[in-house]
């Protein structure tokens, strides 16, 4: 897949369930600077809807892309969040 952006930071929340993917994404974003793109790796299937909803209602972040891939026998939900 071609991406029109470059990931600057990765947050691995695989093996963590609601509400941790959203909460830790927010904590990571707070440490980033404008223009940075955070890649979030999650195994929580709810993270797709939750991160989308969070990004929608939060100022200063944009959800660029969400992917689903199989990794080591489990589904990994990858989210790309840009800090505006």
């Amino acid at each position: 897949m071609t991406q029109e952006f470059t990931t600057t930071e990765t947050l691995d929340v695989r093996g963590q369930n609601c509400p941790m993917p959203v909460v830790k994404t927010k904590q990571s974003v707070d440490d980033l600077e404008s223009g940075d793109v955070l890649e979030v790796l999650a195994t929580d299937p709810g993270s797709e809807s939750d991160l989308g909803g969070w990004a929608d209602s939060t100022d200063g972040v944009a959800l660029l892309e969400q992917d689903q891939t199989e990794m080591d026998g489990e589904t990994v939900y990858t989210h790309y969040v840009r800090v505006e």
Partner: protein
Amino acid sequence: MSTDTPPVEDETEQLSRAELQARVEELESRLSDVEAETGDDGQKMSIIATKGTLDMAYPPLILASTAAAFGYDVTVFHTFWGLDILHEEHSKNLKLSSVGNPNMPVPNVVAALPGMDRVTTSMMERKIDGNDTATIEELIETSLDMGVEFQACQMTIDLLDYDEDDFYDGVRTGVGAATAIQDMADADIQLLV
């Protein structure tokens, strides 16, 4: 629409403009007064946590930490058994009762037997662990990191014979119902759990 409106005398128009200008200025000044009174414009959430069983400890903590991630200014007022969620020792040993809970796979007559709370609690703890659900302690520490204010009701601390040092660092003690009411009155979301 008719275009032949009667000409307005210059003087009248001048007067009404001046009046309008004065009115706008008055409204602007009142608006800034109101804005100053209501303080900052951030969104707020107030939760009252009254239960101390393992299952009922989760909703206030999950909602508090998530609301903080959404940028809400969150306060959670813990009273009665809700205090156990903030109690450093008790929070690690919260129990689940199957008595009176038709969702549990144990009939009430069996659930009422001695030791059954321990059985149902460890069953739930295994499920929590297997489901990658965060522990109560993790949720409290994370919420504190995110700026959630946990309040421990002073009246029930005294009633239940707890000590202020029993609670997690960062928990605010010495607060009562009036503080909770004030937080609820200021909040955009209020919940009783």
